[in-house]
């Protein structure tokens, strides 16, 4: 799992029916200092995030399993909202 910042919302009318009802966001992966890592991704939201939120997300096969008994065609899924990060002093180089 990794940290990310929600930076936008994606509207797509024509999409796979298995994505119906799900919210798609533009997600910028970030590190613990909120510095951008790599390119922006499109993510399925499962926790009610909003633009500007710091979240954690899961990629790969695990991104398809947020709902029991149902797989979704997603490779990036937001699974948690960050309330607070506690960073150890000197823990970052």
């Amino acid at each position: 799992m990794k940290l990310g910042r929600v930076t936008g919302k994606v509207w797509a009318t024509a999409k796979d029916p298995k994505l119906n009802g799900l919210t798609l966001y533009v997600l910028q992966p970030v590190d613990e200092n909120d510095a951008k890592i790599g390119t922006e991704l499109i993510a399925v939201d499962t926790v009610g995030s909003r633009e500007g939120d710091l979240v954690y997300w899961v990629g790969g096969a695990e991104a398809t399993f947020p709902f029991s008994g149902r797989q979704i065609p997603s490779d990036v899924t937001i699974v948690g909202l960050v309330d607070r990060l506690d960073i150890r002093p000197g823990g970052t180089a």
Partner: protein
Amino acid sequence: MILCKVVGSIVSTIKHDSYHNQKVLLVRPVSPDGTLKTGTMVAVDTVGAGEGNTVLVASEGRAATEILGFSARQPLRSVIVGIVDRIDRERSDQ
């Protein structure tokens, strides 16, 4: 598995059910000599790791499902599976 150092922890109220009652930590990959690398990750702790510990992080395959005992696969992939006490290396290796 990869070698990481615990650099912090995450407080999170709203999260997927599979993360409930789990300790969620921030880890950064490190080389065996302790040099921090980029690519901070979020990982669920299963061994009582704390900030500053060098740990083993598994994030491939079905590691999380097996270790956390989920009956079905969940959207959770990175778990801390060990705390490293010491790494011995060949001197010629360094």
